[in-house]
């Protein structure tokens, strides 16, 4: 069961993703209303993925992603952001985000993100290259 933490002061903005994951049956969903609350949860529980809204009330999603690295860099993070992809890449470079999500992400984004998360978890857990 994958543990996903959704962070937004407005549950409605991530509700379509949440519904899609709830239907999938292999995701344990948690919610946090602020960045500070989410950082507290991430420091206590082994989370597989954090999805943040663009603004979290007490910080932006990108600021949160930076702070999350100090808590646990192994946790994957995706963030809603309205910036064009190139500008987002520049703004988020080095944070190692799993994906940029559009405002009000839907079912297809939930499915795509889950697929990418599983792929990366397999890569991280699995292959041990041969020494030559």
């Amino acid at each position, binding site marked *: 069961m994958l543990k996903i933490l959704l962070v937004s002061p407005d549950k409605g903005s991530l509700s379509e993703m949440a519904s899609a994951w709830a239907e999938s049956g292999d995701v344990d969903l948690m919610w946090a209303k602020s960045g500070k609350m989410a950082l507290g949860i991430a420091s206590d529980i082994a989370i597989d993925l954090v999805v943040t809204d663009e603004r979290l009330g007490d910080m932006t999603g990108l600021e949160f992603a930076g702070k999350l*690295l100090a808590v646990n*860099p*192994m946790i994957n993070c995706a963030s809603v952001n309205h910036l064009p992809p190139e500008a987002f890449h520049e703004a988020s*470079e080095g944070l190692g985000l799993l*994906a940029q999500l559009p405002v009000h992400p839907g079912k297809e984004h939930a499915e795509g993100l889950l697929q*990418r998360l599983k792929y*990366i978890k397999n*890569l991280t857990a699995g292959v041990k290259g041969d*020494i030559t």
Partner: protein
Amino acid sequence: MQAGRIAVPSIEAGGINGQRSGHFGHCDVFTLVDVEGGEVKQVTTIPNQSHVQGGCMVPVNLLADHQVDALIVGGIGMRPLMGFKQAGIDVYYDVARQEIKPVVEDLIAGKLPLITENQVCGGGSGDCTGH
């Protein structure tokens, strides 16, 4: 360094006489240099895994699995740097030289600096040459 295993992100076949890769996540192979008594005892290579968006922790786990103690980079993002710190792998920095051998020799001699957080890629740090 008196003893330990050094990893160097490398292009093509790597090896002690090979060339470094500018950014660890996009390298072809990692050259692994085993040091004993302050001398190079063995040089091997391991292939890098495929690099995908968000997959920064894949090489961290790969090098941790291979008991690497130190990594020499010319560019790295904050997330993998924090991952290496968590894994107990020291990250050293040299952006100037392309050859593997002189930077390994400098690390063994204690002349190579650890990377600082203002030298990581992104956030307008400006020092990254790997992109």
